[in-house]
């Protein structure tokens, strides 16, 4: 199964890719780095800001297109935020599989964007 059309990086076991990430909301803007790692049939992801403070740890299961959140920074750790994040991240991962790097949540006016970084 081809997981990510835009890059062959995550098509192989142990493949890893780093993105410059941004989340734009009506009253806030967050930027940082998103690292994705393919492990078996699961993609593990971590999103942290430039200073290194982790906002999210998650896993994405391409078979059923579900995201499981393993860690959410305390300030965002509310059930209603988790629900939005789970759904939006699943949509973002799905877009990545299709070769796109942006997902816009029309209802909540949130835009998620990933841009591939040089992997070092």
């Amino acid at each position, binding site marked *: 199964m081809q997981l990510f059309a835009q890059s062959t990086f995550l098509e192989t076991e142990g493949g890893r890719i780093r993105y410059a990430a941004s989340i734009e909301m009506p009253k806030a*803007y967050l930027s940082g780095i998103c690292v994705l790692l393919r492990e078996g049939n699961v993609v593990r992801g971590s999103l942290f800001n430039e200073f290194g*403070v982790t906002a999210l740890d998650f896993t994405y299961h391409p078979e059923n297109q579900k995201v499981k959140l*393993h860690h959410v920074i305390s300030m965002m750790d509310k059930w209603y935020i988790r629900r939005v994040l789970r759904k939006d991240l699943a949509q973002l991962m799905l877009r990545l599989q299709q070769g796109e790097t942006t997902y816009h949540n029309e209802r909540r006016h949130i835009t998620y964007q990933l841009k591939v970084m040089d992997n*070092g």
Partner: protein
Amino acid sequence: MKRLLILLFVLVSVHLSLMAQQNEAQIRQAITQAASTMKTMQCDFTQTKHLKMLNDKMTSKGRMYYQQTNRLRWEYTSPYSYTFILNDDKVLLKNAQRNDVIDVNKNKLFREIARIMMNSVVGTSLTDDKSFKSTIATNGSEWTASLLPQRKDLKQLFQKIILHFNRTNAMVKQVELIERNGDKTVIELNNIRTNEKISADMFTIR
């Protein structure tokens, strides 16, 4: 005889404990003194983020400028370009796409990050008893201070902060930020220069 040995053991233990306390007080005094005489500081830094869940790490590099008492410029140059400027109550966040100015009093996350970054590199976190419970140990050529957050907002961010001080000048040379999920960020400070004039432009927020 047995009682005498116990008494001797107790006396030696108390003596060693008092010596350790005295030594710790001297180290704190040396660090406080170094921080208070530091009007400006500039250095290069290497930041390594350790991701526990991904068993991965990422290194970024940049340059830092500090001016007593409330000005900090933290600039990443590789592998991404990102500048964070703290000037009193205002923060400027600048990346390739945009500039954002934030009032730190209205943004809890940035207020804490700004405070931690600045107070850690200068070493004043060690004397902030309201925010941290601290212990100090001597390891070869360095002093290691372990800071356990006491305030709720700090506890939400970090499990522990470890500051490594150079014994020869009582200045911070490495900061370890350990998060609640087990991730760790290590910041090494290199080519440190103190008390040299820094242009006010470095801290300008427009």
